[in-house]
């Protein structure tokens, strides 16, 4: 580990978009740092552009021509005099070559060293290192599987069910679960093709598929002075299509002993690669409460707000301090957590029809507020939700004294969300919070897909159906009425009454 001189950052270019770009700029601004936004043509009106001190256009909407284009990002930093780049998550955040280019350009990269990133970026390489460091990992192949024969042989050795996973990337892309031999070849082809599209690397490997596993991760932080601490766990087992939907902290599964042991393993893993900055060790915990490290995300995590809510710290502020070469502000024993936090991710997708992504223009938007509610979003009225980027629209997080109060607070917060014009998973989120499986805390990564009926829309409540019928009838008549310019829409209830006079529009 190096003991670099503190480098005071003055201006930060945020190489990202949406809620996470805004999130990072918020802290930068609070620290007195100027910010530079970059944007594609799809994002000219975006909140992250408006929140920034300066903004530079990168290119057309497709990521490859804008947010993934490292050269353009570095050029924008040079042009605006930014002295540091924060990559957020996704896009260039785990691209070691980009980090090297940033450093060669004389800029500070707010994130880990490229060597640490490479050590953890390739999942196969990461497995090898973790085994060497004595951190438990899931049984699986140590190398990319190259041909169908090898695939079958390895799968037989590990034993079905197995998972096929992309060596590069994350976010649930390029993953397939295979339960029987005949499915194996086609699943591998699809996973490889998806990985190729998403990450430019089609290599895949095999892993034992654990039954009833919980996905629990540990937040770690390292500095250039050799300090590494953990900020406890986040429980991320509520997933659909391998994508996290609802996270909470503390995990209903963990007790202090298991938390301590997982935290120690995470710190050991991070120390073994001289890790600096914010990172997350993802673990699977099986029904015997044995834990296995899955992978390390060498960046800020989507669900970091629930950690911030319970420990009262600003993780982006810590990232900036570490990038400046400063020591971590707190020792392990000084980090305390209070209460219970939950995050729900609002996606542009139709949860009632296979979680397919949805597009559209945001027509009406209202977001929740009041005590214990935090909203992170790039949403605004009039925003176009298109095909080019991740469908996550907003993160609603709550903090309360205990788990039960946090669940009730989240239900209350979600009830205050209004969004029309784009189909979202809001109804699905509300249903999850009402299920016995979630409320009991006894769920695993297969709970959503394994209990489709528990998470499906409940159409049975007669009263609610009546409301829908009444609303449909009224909306239908009001809509027809809009066709007549001499009968303008009005906010007054009395005007609607006129719309239903005998013979009108019938």
């Amino acid at each position, binding site marked *: 580990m190096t003991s670099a001189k503190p480098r005071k950052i003055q201006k930060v270019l945020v190489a990202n978009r949406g809620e996470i770009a805004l999130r990072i700029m918020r802290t930068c601004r609070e620290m007195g740092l100027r910010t530079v936004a970059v944007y594609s043509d799809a994002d000219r009106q975006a909140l992250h552009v408006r929140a920034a001190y300066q903004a530079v256009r990168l290119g057309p909407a497709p990521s490859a021509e804008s947010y993934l284009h490292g050269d353009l990002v570095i050029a924008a930093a040079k042009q605006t005099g930014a002295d540091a780049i924060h990559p957020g998550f996704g896009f260039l955040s785990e691209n070691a070559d980009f980090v090297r280019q940033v450093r060669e350009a004389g800029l500070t990269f707010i994130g880990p060293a490229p060597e640490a990133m490479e050590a953890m970026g390739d999942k196969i390489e990461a497995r090898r290192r973790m085994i060497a460091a004595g951190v438990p990992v899931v049984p699986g192949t140590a190398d990319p599987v190259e041909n169908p024969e090898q695939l079958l042989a390895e799968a037989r050795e590990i034993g079905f069910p197995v998972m096929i996973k992309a060596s590069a990337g994350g976010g649930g892309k390029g993953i397939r679960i295979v339960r029987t031999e005949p499915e194996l070849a086609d699943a591998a082809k699809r996973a490889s093709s998806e990985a190729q599209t998403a990450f430019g690397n089609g290599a895949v490997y095999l892993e034992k598929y654990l039954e009833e596993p919980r996905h629990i991760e540990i937040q770690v932080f390292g500095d250039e002075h050799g300090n590494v601490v953990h900020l406890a766990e986040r429980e991320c087992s509520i997933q659909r*299509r391998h994508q996290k939907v609802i996270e909470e902290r503390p995990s209903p599964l963990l007790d202090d002993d298991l938390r301590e042991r997982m935290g120690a393993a995470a710190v050991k893993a991070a120390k073994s690669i001289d890790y600096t900055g914010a990172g997350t060790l993802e673990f699977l915990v099986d029904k015997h409460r044995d834990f296995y490290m899955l992978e390390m995300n060498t960046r800020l995590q989507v669900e970091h707000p629930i950690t911030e809510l319970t420990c009262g710290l600003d993780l982006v502020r810590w990232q900036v301090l570490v990038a400046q070469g400063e020591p971590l502000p707190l020792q392990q024993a000084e980090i305390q957590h209070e209460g219970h936090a939950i995050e729900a991710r609002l996606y542009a997708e139709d949860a009632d*029809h296979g979680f397919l992504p949805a597009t559209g223009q945001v027509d009406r938007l209202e977001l929740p507020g009041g005590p214990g509610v935090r909203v992170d979003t790039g949403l605004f009225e009039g925003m176009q939700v298109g095909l080019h980027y991740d469908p996550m629209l907003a993160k609603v997080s709550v903090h309360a004294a205990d788990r039960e109060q946090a669940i009730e607070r989240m239900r209350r917060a979600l009830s205050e969300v209004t969004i*029309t014009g784009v189909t979202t998973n809001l109804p699905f989120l509300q249903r999850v919070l009402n299920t016995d499986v979630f409320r009991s805390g006894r769920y695993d990564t297969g709970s959503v897909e394994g209990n489709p009926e528990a998470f499906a829309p409940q159409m049975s409540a007669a009263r609610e159906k009546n409301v829908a019928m009444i609303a*449909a009838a009224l909306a239908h008549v009001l809509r027809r009425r809009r066709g007549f310019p001499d009968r303008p829409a009005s906010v007054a209830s009395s005007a609607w009454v006129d719309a*239903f006079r*005998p013979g009108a529009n019938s």
Partner: protein
Amino acid sequence: MKLHVLIGDTHHELLVERKAGGLAVTIEGETHQIDIGTLKDGAAYSLLIDDRSVDVGVEEKGDRLELLVGGTRYSTEVLGEREWLARSIQAEQGAGDATVRAVMTGIVNEMRVAPGDQVQPGQVLFILEAMKMENEVKAELAGTVLSVAVEAGATVNQGDAVIEIEPVES
């Protein structure tokens, strides 16, 4: 006025009347007093049904109205008396050929069938990609592909007809 409301495919009848200076809706013999507040015309309304407060989000999708009510999304269609009659007659004359539609807006990554192909239920017809996720669109019935509307690489909108299948009589 009398209105026919389809929620999904289920049919309901409503009577909407002016009553005592307000609106009254009768469903299955029960009458409710209604008060409407507009939050944004065509997008969001506040309803008081009797004295119960309910927010309703509305999205107009072609002839259908998608409603967001208390955490549930309803796909509805509202018809007047004559429209409902016409619809009923049409239904009796039987359905046409099976149309496979794009389930979401996206890019057709791969087209696996051509006109003349025999397909089986569950067979993958084409791959639709959006937001970096690949989705397999499968046949729901056995039959012969009559036509294929787009080539691989084309962008399709949600609901677009992509493939027509002539079902095999079972």
